[in-house]
């Protein structure tokens, strides 16, 4: 559990960390995530899900999981992990699933397998001796993620914190000094084939350098490569955790959202081209109509209009494809914009990948010419009755 209260206490005392230490711990994880780009991250002892909430913005993460023994504290703010309206309006390219489990770190559950990073921020000091005993086997042996981060208070620092008598928090079952923590970590690393590095947050004040960081952190990295599959098949497969929250974020990987995005982009592009075309046509028309010359609406647009287009991506696209196919033309009351031209727009191109995919996605959603090679934008103005 995260000692938000303690962090506050730390601020009001003679020793003040800015930003507060709990924030520094989260930032530490976030930096780590940004550096190693894990796809699957779990936070054990996630409490009110603050860290998970911060991590959901990291674009590399596709699976986020939280585990805590206290259901109520998780539920308190878990809805912050739900997708936001904006996520639906502009679905992200990545997929993201956030799940919260109610359970104990002393128990195994297959849902925790295959993670790239597992964090245990200020967790172990809340564990009873029996739980602590099982902890390494569960985390390193069973879950066996590529990386584990464990943080815990450094008891050597406690004398510098005002008001701290025994432990920093009444629920702490123990607080270790640097030697205790490091020997425990080295044991675990050695036993389960991990390397471990030690660091910390909250530097001691000048003159007390020996006490070490206020929060001690160990970063474990698995030595053996990821086999992709759970290693030990004899591991228990029954679920001991209970899912209490699950949110699947809308993503462009989901065809429903991809189609919406592509259709919107195609129509938007076609409309921009049409508008530009009509604008240039109107300016020509105006010149002519000053002399009251009637122009027939059905005409083949001079090609230079398109050449004058300022959009570099349009011009670029023009070079790429066969001239005839790329030609936007007007017929009757409609403008025909070749699909291949729209496909050459970088945004559309990126969304669809292939031309076939583009055709497939917009079929039935966008008005196309008879042969399906061009988007049709009607320029007919439906007039409404005026009062």
């Amino acid at each position, binding site marked *: 559990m995260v000692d938000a209260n303690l962090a506050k206490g730390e601020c009001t005392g003679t020793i003040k960390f*800015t*930003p507060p230490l709990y924030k520094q711990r989260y930032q530490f994880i976030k930096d780590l995530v940004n550096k190693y780009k894990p796809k699957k991250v779990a936070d054990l002892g996630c409490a009110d899900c*603050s860290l998970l*909430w911060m991590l959901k*913005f*990291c*674009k590399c993460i596709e699976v986020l999981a939280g585990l805590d023994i206290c259901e*109520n*504290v998780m*539920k*308190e*703010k878990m*809805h*912050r*992990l*739900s*997708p*936001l*309206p*904006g996520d*639906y*309006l*502009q679905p992200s390219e990545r997929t993201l699933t956030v799940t919260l489990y109610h359970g104990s770190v002393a128990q195994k559950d297959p849902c925790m397998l295959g993670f790239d990073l597992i964090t245990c921020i200020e967790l172990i000091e809340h564990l009873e001796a029996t739980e602590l005993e099982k902890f390494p086997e569960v985390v390193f042996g069973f879950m066996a993620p590529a990386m584990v981060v464990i943080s815990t208070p450094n008891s050597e620092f406690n004398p510098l914190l005002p008001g701290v008598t025994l432990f920093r928090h*009444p*629920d702490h079952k123990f607080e270790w000094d640097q030697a205790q923590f490091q020997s425990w970590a080295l044991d675990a690393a050695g036993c389960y084939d991990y390397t471990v590095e030690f660091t910390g947050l909250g530097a001691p004040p000048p003159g007390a350098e020996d006490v070490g960081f206020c929060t001690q952190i160990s970063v474990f990295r698995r030595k053996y490569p990821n086999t992709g599959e759970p290693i030990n098949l004899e591991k228990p497969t029954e679920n001991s955790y209970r899912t209490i929250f699950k949110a699947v974020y*809308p993503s462009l990987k989901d065809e429903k959202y991809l189609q*919406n995005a592509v*259709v*919107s982009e*195609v*129509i*938007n592009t076609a*409309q921009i081209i049409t508008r530009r075309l009509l604008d240039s046509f109107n300016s020509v028309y105006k010149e002519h109509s000053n002399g009251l010359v009637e122009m027939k609406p059905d005409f083949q647009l001079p090609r230079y209009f398109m050449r004058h287009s300022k959009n570099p991506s349009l011009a670029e696209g023009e070079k790429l494809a066969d001239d005839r196919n790329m030609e936007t033309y007007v017929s009757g009351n409609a403008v025909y914009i070749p699909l291949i031209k729209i496909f050459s727009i970088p945004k559309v191109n990126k969304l669809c990948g292939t031309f076939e995919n583009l055709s497939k996605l917009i079929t039935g*959603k*966008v008005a196309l010419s008879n042969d399906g090679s061009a988007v049709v934008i009607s320029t007919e*103005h*439906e*007039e*409404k*009755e*005026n*009062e």
Partner: protein
Amino acid sequence: MSGRARARGRGQAGRGAVRGGPPPAPAPAALPTGKDYSRSDDSQVVGTFVSEEEASTSSAHGGAARLSQRCDFSAGESKSQGAVLGKGGRTRYDFPDLGINTRKTIAHVRDCKTGSSGIPVKVITNLYSLLLPREWQLYQYHVTFNPEFESRRLRLALLYSHAEFLGKAKAFDGVILFLSQKLENQVTELLTETKRGERVKITITLKSKLPPSSPVCIQFFNIIFKKVLKKLSLYQVGQNFYSPSEPVVIPQHRLTLWPGFAISISQFESRVMLSADVSHKVLCNDTVLEFMTDLYTRCDRARFTETCEKELIGLIVLTRYNNKTYRIDDINWSVKPTDTFPKRDGTDISYVDYYKQQYEVVLSDLNQPMLVSRLKNKQKDSIEPRIVHLIPELCYLTGLTSRARADYRLMKDLVQETRLNPERRQQRLSRLTDNIQRNSEARLVLETWGLQLGCQISLTGRIVPTEKILMQGEMCLPMSASDWSKDLRNMKMLGVPSLDTWLIVCSNRNAEVMKNLLNCLRRVGGPMGFRIEYPKILHVQESTLAFLRALQQHVTPEVQLVMCVLPSNQKDCYDSIKKFLILDRPVPSQCVLACTLTKPGMMMSVATKIAMQIICKLGGELWAVEIPLKSLMVIGVDVNKDALNKGSSVVGFVASTNSRITRWSSRCILQTTGNDIADCLKVCMKGALSKWLKHNQELPARIIVYRGGVGDGQLKMVVDYEVPQLLSSLTELSTNYRPKVSVVVVRKKCIARFFAEADGSLRNPPIGTVVDTEATRPEWYDFYLVSQLVHQGTVNPTHYNVVYDDSGLKPDHMQRLTYKMCHLYYNWPACGSVVSQDLNAKSTLEYNKQAYHKGCLDSPPAPSSCPSLKRL
């Protein structure tokens, strides 16, 4: 946005020299609490109650405190109360008009408010019964801790640790505890220990037992149902719930629609029911930055900032990174994302860095301006408004801009998606109720409290008889009240002036269609009794300027009417002409689009409608209905918020000047100071009475006022303030003048929907359907009337709430009279949706509002300048 736009923007610097940061992060509590929706106007935010299972958020606190405050329960010592309020969310006035009992003041409807005439018809409603065990009550307890704890989390944990509360339905906000089952004792004392070993005494005192119909209970039910909808993965935006995972995309207009629902629980005539209706949230696919960029390419660049502000200010945006909505109150062109703001810890950070750090968002345009939003003060005592700066790139527009609203094609496409016929509407509603009943989590929420969602309510309405239409010398009984234009053929209009001196302005190109129209007008005019002389015809170039020049030269005081045949549907052309003919040279005018005159086969019917409109504009009377009451004056009042000037409103007032109720006087007042509408009604009232006196040589014996534009929570103001003022204005006129007065509040937007069954499918109920049982409120003298035919979608019944009535008119007569009034909207030979007076008031209002907004706020048109222009 490009550099040039910005350069202009910079010039406007320093308008809002307020220091504001981005909205505070982390976003406190997400979706389900609902506390995070700040909305602009009347819709404030609900405080949420949370039961154990979803240990509450801070908002719950405020909600509870307010709830109890409003209902006169004391909630704890003032100290804890203060803390509660400081933290809490704001109260949304969900049922603001709750507790206004006007029926008891109207003696003759105390026992029965139902009418009797008409044919009974089975009506299916959008109401669902709420099943409660017999004798169900909500027990409200007050909880104190000794010693006291600030931490709500701790209070919750301490209370819930007691076995007495395990597994029971409960909602606790730290001070007030709701239980669905009674505790054994009036006062329960519990001893407990914190983890630190402190001994704590908890005292739980029963404050009240609340029956399901009590206001607190109703609000409580609403909160419970909000929770239920959240369990169904619906998102709350504003007051309603939407399903963003089933978006309807309208790509050609870059809009997304979220289907959803508006629900509420209320006490209806005989029981508590859930009303549910389909709602759609309109969202813009573009960010505000994209919107600005697009606007920049389209509009006059020299006026970009001005146009931009005009378009955006007042709109509600949704941010990308939290779940809040904000109203754009201003745009600050001088602050850019690279500027810094002070964080809560006192350090400065730039907006770019802040969003990068907090949300991993990289801003693409470092020169965009800032949207400014003023937050409602959470603390009552703090005077300084809280201001947030929002990055346009991270905001989405919700709702429609005025530009979008004016886009006929956009609105058409939108309506296609949002206008559901009764059958489809019913399907959506069934799906919602099925989901509530099937989803185990949702059901659990209800069941813990002993609640159950019952079946859809149907009731018996009445179709009141179609009114006879009185014409000159004859009358007709139309086949249907939905359209009697055919029935009127070859009948003479009631009172028609002749059109002797008039102008037609038309472009050279449209000379032919104009000639054709003129012929048709003269042909249809004959049978109507409308003599149309040959006009003076002006052929001009196809430009707004040419039209205006022609008008300038030829509109003289003798001209009765100007008709303009417009070449295209360009709004500015229409606007300029109307502005000129309303303000500069007040004269009735009729604009016609050339293209409407080219539709083959439609000419005669188009001409008929135009002729009728012209007759109205000349002050003629088209038809009448039988009014059994003599010396009855009918008044229509509508009030509209002025979109451009926040805080001011426009009041439209029309009053009949003859007993036949075919002639009207109208007036429109721009009210700048908030709610003092009653004062201006008094002025209007006096004017109307003196007009009546002039035309009838005596004061009216009866007066009925139809008051529209009453928003949520304003009913009290109407009842407590406006009605007395109106009454006093009568006695002030003459001490012994005591007309019989009725005041009816008209609401077109209400949550109630009615369907009628026909041939195995659901239809809109027939015109003239009156509902005055079940779906009405026990404390009001109210009824619903379906008075209009809709071809697409579901009809909106109009709600009539008689808030004052000393006329002694039987409810049946009141309903019939109201229905008669619906026949008198002259723009259309059919029943109007609301009583014509209200519509007329609206028209007057629109008309004048337009005039005001055309830049002549200082000199609003004198009401006398357009006496004959009763409608546009």
